[in-house]
């Protein structure tokens, strides 16, 4: 009997690896790949954080805004810029590639940004008019998430031939990953460089916008105290709209970067998991806190890679969820605390 029991636990443990050697040898490579993932999480996390800071609302449909951004970027590259989807990479030289990437990114930003604003208009604004309970907002967000996903799943293929549906889009590979230089024996590819640098630049711009402009001051004021901010002449509705717009635009940018990293990942359900992870990142860094979203994103990306190295590829998603649960239990305010409202200039 005891023998049998031990045998059972061994077969249970057999599915969960614990490969320290793998983590040790590949440590720097896992770190650098993790940073690329983390940059994408961070950009999406900013969207969650801003909306949460201003409205105290988990915008559950934000992952679908990101997903629409992916389709927007794909549409732009495929039909507007004329890159036919194929398994091979286009290598048009650095200058042209950067130009094309820039155009696609702007298009994705426009798609995601307008989708986010539309979401605010259609779903959340009527609820605010009616002074709905927080639970009502969350359920609406879940409903919108359904609607957007299923729209791309079943309705989009009827509108644009070959788009949406149950299968992922044929990949368009604009940049072939190529090692640029090495850090501690780990290769840094051009794709990783583009992702991390663009994310950092965009995060910096967002930070400057929130902390140095008049609009940004309005955002912080509403986050701090909506009633007083309104009395001081800040239009709450306009601030909320701007917040959704910024979140959406960043999600669009993240969508293009994601497309560079995972060209075959453009599918109707592709935003869901990434959205939850980005939300985890936002919570990890301290939701409502811009810097926290950035730090949380990078941290989550790296930790996820370490977990994957340690326990095996199939446990990647579990690591992210366990991390989220642990953070909420140990320090629900996250690493940097919730501070969009209390930040001073």
């Amino acid at each position: 009997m005891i023998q049998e029991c031990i045998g059972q636990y061994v077969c249970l443990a057999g599915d969960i690896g614990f490969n320290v050697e793998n983590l040790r040898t590949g440590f720097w490579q896992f770190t650098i790949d993790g940073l690329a993932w983390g940059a994408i999480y961070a950009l999406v996390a900013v969207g969650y954080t801003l909306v949460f800071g201003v409205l105290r609302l988990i915008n559950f449909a934000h992952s679908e805004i990101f997903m629409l951004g992916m389709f927007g970027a794909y549409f732009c590259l495929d039909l507007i810029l004329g890159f036919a989807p194929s398994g091979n990479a286009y290598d048009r030289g650095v200058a042209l590639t950067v130009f094309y990437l820039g155009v696609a990114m702007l298009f994705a930003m426009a798609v995601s940004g307008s989708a986010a604003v539309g979401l605010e208009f259609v779903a959340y604004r009527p609820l605010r008019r009616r002074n709905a309970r927080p639970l009502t907002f969350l359920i609406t967000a879940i409903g919108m998430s359904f609607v957007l996903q299923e729209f791309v799943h079943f309705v989009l293929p009827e509108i644009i031939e070959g788009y949406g549906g149950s299968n992922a889009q044929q990949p368009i590979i604009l940049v072939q990953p190529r090692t640029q230089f090495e850090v501690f024996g780990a290769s840094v590819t051009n794709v990783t460089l583009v992702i991390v640098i663009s994310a950092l630049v965009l995060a910096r711009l967002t930070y400057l916008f929130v902390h140095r402009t008049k609009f940004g001051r309005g955002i912080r004021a509403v986050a701090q105290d909506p009633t007083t901010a309104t009395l001081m002449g800040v239009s709450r509705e306009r601030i909320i709209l701007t917040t959704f717009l910024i979140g959406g635009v960043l999600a669009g940018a993240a969508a293009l970067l994601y497309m560079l990293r995972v060209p075959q990942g453009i599918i109707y359900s592709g935003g869901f998991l990434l959205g939850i992870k980005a939300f985890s990142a936002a919570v990890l860094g301290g939701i409502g806190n811009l810097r926290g979203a950035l730090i949380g994103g990078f941290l989550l990306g790296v930790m996820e890679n370490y977990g994957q190295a340690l326990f095996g590829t199939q446990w990647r998603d579990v690591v992210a969820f366990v991390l989220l649960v642990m953070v909420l239990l140990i320090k629900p305010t996250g690493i940097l605390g919730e501070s969009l409202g209390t930040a001073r200039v």
Partner: protein
Amino acid sequence: MSVLLAPGDVLRRWWSELTRVQKWAFGAIGFGALALLPVYTPAFLDTPGISFGGTMAQFAMVAIIAIGLNVVVGQAGLLDLGYVGFYAVGAYTVALLTSPDSPWNRVAPDGWLHENWAWLACVPIAMAVTALAGLILGFPTLRVRGDYLAIVTLGFGEIIRLLADNLAGVTNGPRGLNGVAYPHFGATEDLPHGVFSSGNSSGDVNYGTWWFWLGLILIVVILLLVGNLERSRVGRAWVAVREDEDAAESMGVNTFRFKLWAFVIGAAIGGLSGALYAGQVQYVAPPTFNIINSMLFLCAVVLGGQGNKLGVIFGAFVIVYLPNRLLGVELMGVNLGDLKYLFFGLALVVLMIFRPQGLFPVRQQLLTYGRSARTLLASADEPKAAR
């Protein structure tokens, strides 16, 4: 518009005027008629694409889930997005104990479970295991804020599915567990494995219908238990926690304990439904427990009216029946059955804007006072009406 969105008010007025005996009588007639539906199926209700008995069996399971989720979401006001996790734990408990594919198979000749009653013996075990899972999840997470709870439970539901998918040595991974036990009852020469076996697949009284009847009995039992809980101290504490947690706490309600109770009871009911599912389908695999089903269950509760246990049964019926009815019906080249999530998503959004309390809302303030308050109110209204 208001009549369409609020059929509950008219019904409730009629219902609340009945005496207790009349209510029981109408209840018995109602459930009896429901039980006879698969046998005498009206033509307009029938599901041409799929067995009507099977549809009703599915409805019974989702109804049980909706009642359980209603305890958590509707009564105690805790948004649980990972409820499908408990459903999975219940189903996998039965499957792991009785499937020949599982290393933990305990059915004779190797184990102590006899084939004839293995399923029945596993149902209480499944409920106990799920209740324990609810306790383990609830104990640390119920201290976090409401909206965080939603995400933590979502993570839990996904972790359960990923575990089932990845622990291939135990759960057989994506291939799933075959040959789960079911009750061997009413065996005849034609049906050597009894009426609950999938061999009983022809006619109106097929195995789906039998599972529906079993589910219906369980629904009635659960309704009585949950109804009694609702009217007890526990139920009043739940309503207090839902309406204002701080106020409840300062009035001496041990909010954490009652939230944990709601979680554990809800989990056990979800586990029961999972056990039913495992028995009926005789096969358990990870994709069934996808997180999107969690949303669908939530949709049933919200649609029916959070907090109203009869309302959520109606919600469960809509959730199960409509996709099965629309199976194979085409509109402009799109299969309407495919669009279920789109429609349910839209329904959620529209309901939240125009009628957040659901089709059959519960009278929140009056629930605690019950009958006496209603009679008091009615007598107070009368002089006004006379004037």
